[in-house]
């Protein structure tokens, strides 16, 4: 910092020296305007001319003829006998004024601060067009005498310059925004901030500009593709549905979701209730050194979100908004009625056995003409609206800054009765009371309403409340095209149908529910009310010591209401009808106290932090249900209107608390050698009361090679830093609140005589020795900046070993299976890989500039140990059939199944091949006899791939040309596999479902006709559709996620409209996807099946026909008034 001041001073002195250099000009011009005259002087001299446009007598032309004169001499000559006067100011500034109204000078004072609120010492404040100006003092203050009409240019290394017209004001303060990728960028870290150049840990940052105009509902979604090592996946395309964020790999058998801290408030669900437009910056703490200050909650990484704050200056009103439409991005080519009809008859012929009793009669030719031809995907996926509007006002002065904003987001689903609405209010105020005290608050209020339909899964064991049921998309895919959406006449006229009762029956028309009717009869609503906010007091009793106490809360009320109407042919669905409601209040508060001391002694620079924190969470649930509603209309869908004699009630409460001490010491020597040490001691109520405490340590070192003497001649290198860190992190989330204790409760009934009696027993076993699962992470990184920061590169190698994994081992069944088994600390997982983040930006000229940023992450995930090294089966796709096996030596949730090996082409091939079961014939799928025992059975299963991509990558590009800007965002993954379970439904040919066009038209029908699509046969489906690599597909994809074209309107038009600046843009989300995956969307592969949902990473990438992401077209505007 001192260095930069001296550089500025030097420059300034040189400029000053020029004032006295008596420059001389020779000039001969005839009939030029005044403007042209001053222009010429400016170009030929070092002087700058400042004048108001209306002062100049524009109609007047002048003649100039001077030889070897100084500028003042020229002006004396030319301005004589004109209404103009001039004044030579310090610097080379010449102000031209009218003689009648002499130019006035004013003294302007102000303060320059960073976005984080820190004063910027040594920032340059100049009058535009001159070298005249000053620099700010240690507190960021400046004072300068300037002409009334001057425009000040504020600049500071690493920050975007900012221009402010003085406009007669005597106070001008500005907040400088950091330049992207700049080494002076201030980064939010745990319980504080740091300069990016001083970081020794691995932190990725995402700024507000990444948010702009992306038509996404959630803040987590904007993180996608923005940071290496952060895998963000939209779990389904359903509006308001969750987003999975995994930092540096799956390191738990439960959730690997990171800890979110918003404005210092820890939250698990709060992230979903923050409007993306209210986000100022996001820091992702990835390595142990950065994250371990969060101790027992940090093992999955920490995401710090800072919401927008007011900046100094007059109140500024701004509007951001977009509106658009969502359309299905991709449909699977399914058989039409004719293809389905023909395939049916082909299969009937293939399966015909002379004298057999199971033969199906071929459909009569004329029948096809009587049947409808429905494309069910088009019936359920319709164009839908999306829109967002945000209005904010912010401003402030030296003492107080504020912002208030309101945001409304509305996304209708492509499937009927799915939607998401959110309304946000955001306020942030900080006020410096005096030299010692500063107070502030951040408040976020949100209301959201989510309407859900079955978005994934087959509804298997769907527990009420947590699972919306079977996927509408799945039903749409396998519903046959020959069934009508609605009957036009008959006893059920106007009503939706489920199964038509017509010729051929279910064999021809299929079974399953009518997806249109199912969606229409789904009425499932979640109403969320969220408060996330804090108040803080900051005290600076002595210089360099800051004490802060912060009280935060996150309060979420979730209201669930679902009505299950009776519907369908013979009104068999939901009979009797029922209403279910629940109300959950999830209240968390935290009280955080920190003391921060900064000490500089010579070349030693030490920052020390100590703090304490307590966090408590309390979740209360009330639920009720009733059934037998005589009137199904919405005005009667209340608990009181049901007629059940035994309406349901439920309720419970559960709490946890954390008490912590933490500390961080950061040391720098000469800005070259950097080190940091973190310590946190956490006590958790989730551990046995006799032993609740644990310690977490981490340390990191850094070396600024570019600061070394031997680097001083290498001008191109502006930053070269080597850093390394090592430490431990805990995973509090994987523990349940009371896992240390066995729980006893009522568990059903028995009867003595004629009296039922309640029975109680241990229903959950506890383990008093439970501990946090612990990740030990090493990280080595290199940061490189070239050409004054135009090119930036960060490379990290990380190795994260998670031990003491929490596993609920299968107890021997003789130990009783009434009680859920106790968790145990067992097992080990490693995640390791490289992360690259690179960016380059270039300004070609004043019209053209471009910027490109890319990131690439590799990951190797492997289970190193398990309880008894016993593989864990997960991902149920059928009774006793599980798609994955988590086993030592393989990634978590590795696919484990038979290996399909083409199709039997000849009887001889069938004969010589291992025995696959009765009735195998040419045209059937062949499986590999892996163990060589001559029989194909479950012992021939192989580890067939991983649901975790080896490689994830993203690229953003940004081009500006004059007032236009173009943004592109690509994102992709490689190396993962997807088990296409719905592919089994629509290609397995085992029930009267519709099939893909491929199956209907390209099936095997003789030697050499196909080696991938078996012959059409119901009887052979048992063999052909069994779980195998036939339905396991590559999940590689590359998506152009977003393309956006913007235009900044010219200021002339805007001034008339009282608008400072305005940008309008058009954008397309999910422009295209390059993939070989045959399902709807390789990114949306969640299963909401109860089992899969609880199995976490052990059951990923099983596609049951998930609600796809839409292609979204929007237009929008950002307006600043």
């Amino acid at each position, binding site marked *: 910092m001192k260095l930069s001041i001296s550089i500025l001073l030097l420059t300034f002195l040189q400029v000053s020296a020029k004032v006295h250099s008596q420059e001389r000009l020779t000039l001969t011009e005839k009939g030029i305007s005044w403007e042209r005259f001053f222009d010429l002087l400016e170009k030929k001299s070092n002087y700058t001319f400042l004048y108001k446009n209306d002062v100049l007598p524009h109609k007047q032309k002048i003649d100039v003829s001077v030889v070897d004169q100084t500028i003042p001499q020229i002006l004396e000559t030319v301005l004589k006998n004109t209404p103009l006067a001039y004044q030579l100011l310090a610097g080379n500034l010449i102000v031209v004024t009218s003689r009648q109204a002499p130019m006035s000078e004013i003294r302007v004072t102000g303060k320059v601060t960073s976005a984080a609120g820190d004063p910027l010492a040594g920032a340059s404040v100049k009058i535009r067009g001159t070298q005249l100006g000053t620099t700010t003092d240690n507190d960021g203050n400046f004072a300068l005498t300037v002409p009334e009409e001057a425009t000040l240019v504020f600049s500071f290394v690493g920050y975007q310059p900012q221009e402010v017209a003085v406009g007669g004001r005597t106070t001008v303060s500005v907040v400088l925004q950091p330049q992207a990728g700049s080494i002076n960028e201030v980064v939010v870290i745990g319980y504080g901030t740091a300069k990016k150049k001083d970081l020794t840990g691995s932190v990725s940052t995402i700024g507000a500009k990444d948010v702009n105009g992306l038509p996404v509902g959630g803040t987590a979604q904007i993180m996608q593709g923005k940071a290496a090592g952060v895998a963000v996946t939209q779990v389904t395309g359903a509006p308001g549905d969750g987003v999975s964020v995994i930092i540096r790999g799956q390191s738990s058998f439960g959730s690997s979701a990171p800890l979110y801290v918003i404005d210092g408030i820890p939250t698990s669900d709060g992230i979903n209730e923050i409007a993306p437009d209210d986000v100022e910056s996001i820091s992702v703490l990835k390595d142990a050194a950065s994250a371990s200050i969060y101790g027992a909650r940090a093992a999955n990484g920490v995401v710090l979100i800072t919401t927008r704050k007011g900046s100094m200056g007059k109140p500024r009103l701004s509007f951001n908004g977009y509106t658009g439409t969502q359309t299905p991005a991709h449909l699977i080519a399914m058989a039409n009625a004719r293809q389905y009809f023909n395939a049916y008859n082909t299969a009937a012929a293939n399966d015909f056995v002379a004298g057999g009793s199971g033969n199906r009669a071929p459909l009569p030719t004329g029948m096809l003409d009587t049947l409808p031809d429905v494309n069910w995907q088009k019936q359920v996926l319709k164009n839908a609206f999306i829109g967002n509007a945000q209005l904010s006002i912010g401003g402030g002065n030296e003492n107080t800054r504020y912002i208030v904003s309101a945001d409304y987001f509305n996304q209708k689903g492509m499937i009927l009765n799915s939607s998401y609405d959110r309304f946000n209010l955001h306020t942030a105020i900080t006020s410096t009371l005096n030299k010692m005290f500063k107070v502030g608050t951040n408040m976020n209020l949100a209301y959201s309403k989510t309407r859900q339909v079955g978005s994934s899964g087959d509804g298997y064991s769907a527990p009420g409340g947590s699972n919306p049921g079977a996927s509408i998309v799945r039903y749409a895919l396998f519903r046959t095209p020959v069934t009508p959406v609605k009957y036009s006449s008959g006893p059920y006229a106007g009503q939706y149908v489920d199964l038509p009762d017509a010729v051929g029956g279910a064999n021809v028309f299929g079974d399953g529910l009518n997806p249109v009717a199912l969606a229409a009869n789904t009425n499932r609503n979640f109403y969320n009310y969220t408060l996330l906010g804090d108040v803080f007091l900051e*005290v600076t*009793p002595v210089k360099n010591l800051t*004490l802060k*106490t912060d009280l935060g809360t996150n309060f979420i009320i979730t209201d669930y209401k679902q009505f299950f109407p009776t519907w369908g042919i013979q009104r068999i669905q939901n009979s009797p009808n029922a209403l279910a409601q629940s109300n959950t209040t999830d209240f968390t508060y935290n*009280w955080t*106290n920190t*003391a921060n001391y900064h000490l500089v002694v010579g070349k030693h620079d030490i920052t020390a932090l100590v*703090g*304490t924190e*307590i966090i408590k969470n309390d979740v209360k649930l009330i639920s009720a249900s009733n059934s037998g509603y005589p009137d199904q209309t919405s005005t009667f869908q209340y608990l009181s209107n049901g007629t059940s004699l035994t309406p349901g009630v439920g309720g*419970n*409460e*559960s*709490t*946890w*608390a*954390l*008490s*912590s*001490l933490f500390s961080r010491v950061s040391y720098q020597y000469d800005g070259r050698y950097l080190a940091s040490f973190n310590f946190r001691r956490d*006590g958790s*109520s989730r551990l046995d009361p006799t032993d*609740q405490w644990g310690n977490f340590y981490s340390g990191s070192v850094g070396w600024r090679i570019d600061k070394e003497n031997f680097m001083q001649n290498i001008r191109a290198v502006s930053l070269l830093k080597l850093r390394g860190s090592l430490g431990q992190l805990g995973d509090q989330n994987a523990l349940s*609140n*009371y896992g240390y*204790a*066995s729980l*006893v*409760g*009522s*568990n*059903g*009934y*028995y*009867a*003595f*005589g004629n*009296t*039922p*009696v*309640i*029975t*109680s*027993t*241990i229903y*959950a076993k506890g*383990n008093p020795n439970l501990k946090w699962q612990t990740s030990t992470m090493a990280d080595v990184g290199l940061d490189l900046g070239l050409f004054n920061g135009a090119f930036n590169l960060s490379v990290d190698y990380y190795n994260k070993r998670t031990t003491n994994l929490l596993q609920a*081992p*299968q*107890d*021997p*069944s*003789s*130990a*009783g*299976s*009434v009680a859920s*088994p*106790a968790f*145990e600390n067992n097992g080990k997982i490693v995640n390791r890989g490289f992360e690259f983040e690179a960016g380059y930006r270039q300004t070609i000229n004043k019209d053209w500039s471009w910027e490109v940023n890319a990131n690439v992450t590799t990951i190797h995930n492997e289970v190193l140990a398990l309880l008894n090294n016993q593989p864990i089966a997960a991902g149920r796709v059928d009774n006793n059939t599980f798609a994955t096996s988590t086993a030592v030596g393989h990634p978590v949730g590795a696919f484990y199944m038979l290996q399909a090996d083409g199709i039997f082409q000849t009887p001889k091939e069938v004969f010589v091949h291992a025995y696959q079961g009765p009735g195998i014939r040419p045209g059937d799928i062949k499986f590999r006899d892996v163990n060589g025992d001559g029989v194909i059975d479950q012992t021939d299963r192989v580890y067939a791939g991983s649901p975790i991509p080896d490689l994830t990558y993203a690229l953003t590009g940004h081009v500006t040309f004059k007032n236009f800007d173009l943004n592109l965002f690509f994102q992709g993954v490689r190396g993962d596999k997807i088990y296409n379970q719905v592919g089994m439904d629509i290609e397995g040919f085992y029930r009267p479902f519709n099939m893909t066009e491929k199956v209907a038209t390209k099936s095997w029908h003789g030697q050499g006709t196909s080696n991938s699509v078996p012959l059409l046969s119901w009887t052979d489906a048992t063999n052909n559709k069994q779980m195998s690599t036939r339905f396991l597909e590559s999940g590689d994809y590359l998506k152009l996620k977003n393309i956006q074209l913007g235009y900044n309107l010219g200021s002339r038009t805007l001034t008339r409209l009282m608008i400072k600046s305005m940008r309008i843009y058009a954008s397309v989300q999910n422009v295209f996807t390059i993939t070989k995956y045959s399902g709807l969307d390789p990114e949306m592969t969640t299963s909401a099946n109860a089992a899969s949902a609880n199995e976490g990473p052990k059951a990923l990438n099983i596609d049951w026909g998930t609600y796809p992401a839409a292609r979204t077209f929007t237009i929008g505007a950002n307006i600043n008034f």
Partner: protein
Amino acid sequence: MGVAALFAGAGCKKILDQPVQGSYTPGNFFTSDANAQQAVNEAYKFLSFNAGANNAIWVLGDLASDDAIKGGGSIGDQQDFQAVSQFNILTSNSAVEAVWKNYYNGVFACNVVLDGLTGNNKVSPSMQASGIAQAKFLRAYYYFILTTCYGNIPLHLKVETAKEAQTPARPQDSVFAQIEQDCMGAAAALPATAPSLGMATKGAALALLAKTYLFHSDLANHYQLAAQTAEQVEGMGYQLTHLYSDNFSAATKDNTEEIFTVNHLSGTLGIGNELNVWFAPRPPAPTNGYGFFLPTQNLVDNYESAPGGEADPRLDYSIARAGHSYFDLPYDPTWSSTGYNTKKMVQPLSEVPAATKNVGTVNYEALRLGEILLIDAEALNESGQPAAALIPLNKVRARARNSYQYDNSLAGYPSVPAGLLPDVTTTDQTQLRDIIRRERRSELALEFHRFFDIIRYGKAYANSVLQPIAPNFNYDTNKWFPIPQSERDANPNLFK
């Protein structure tokens, strides 16, 4: 201020005191008699047939024998049950898994009671004694079923951690010894008469002890002990009902013969008898059942008949056959592939309508005097007292033939047909052995005991009975069902 705040935070250990909400822990549950009673109630729960596929003892006890075949919708309907009757039994067989899990769940519930009432607790001494005695009896009952099904099995006598639970299978001899010890402990503390129908009594504990002795062939004098104990039960005031069928009717579930009964009630609490729907004939029969558990011709042929052709009345009380009624309906033999349906564990639609057919109210007589008399007879004969054995044997036969004196629906009522089920007089041990075995098969038909008797009778008997109907049967490998896969997977010490 900051320093004060730091200390305030650091001192905040109190916040970590977050007690369990809404549930007890074992440490604070056994603080009242009412709570203790609920834990005891749970120990009974696994007796119930409220889920026919969970409590699949009927599959192992009778489908594996020559008495019944699976039935159901098709061959593929409950394929694993079919596999049991064909002795094509995988360790993952669902019936083999179900019985194991159900009865070990019972053991677990008993151990929760025993741990809770023997450790620190605030339960009254009388409730403690009563609870412990009931839990011991029930644990013995569950272990008896487990060891007769699976032979050498793990013995869990307390609630264990996952590691502790990984114990080796113990020899059947020591399992029987544990059962005997529990029965004796229970008998000493249980009341002679049940406070309420379905509760354990001293008689139940002794009856189970007698039965255990009968099976416990590694014990040198087990027949003497079985006979003695059976006679002790006989002396406790139990009486055979006049009508054999009273043991299988919901209306007469509380009767003089019942020693230990598995109680079922109607309603929505899940305490009804689901076998009522499993065993009733399938549509088109109006009974609207699942049609499982079909008696065989071989079983029907086991019943004696009078020279005049009148059958042992127990046949028609147990089995529906052509020309006779199925409760209040005329029986149509096309309802069953064998031509027969069981009448035990099922009720007429007039008692349990189709809408609640899976919630039957008829009990399962787990231990009744009829069986105790036959245990006595068998034990006496095997211990060399054939003459003494005739007394209990003939009591059973007399009750059966005397149905004619009490059942006015029988043709010829009230006179017993000549020569029907005459008293046995032979004292030839070998002849009498065969007679007792045949008698036991008729008396206890379709009550889920037959397979265990076949195995107990030895290899020669078992082969002669089972190999003709299940060629796969191999006495040495099939005398016990395999320990299920779920145990093998999670218990690495099982065979150590």
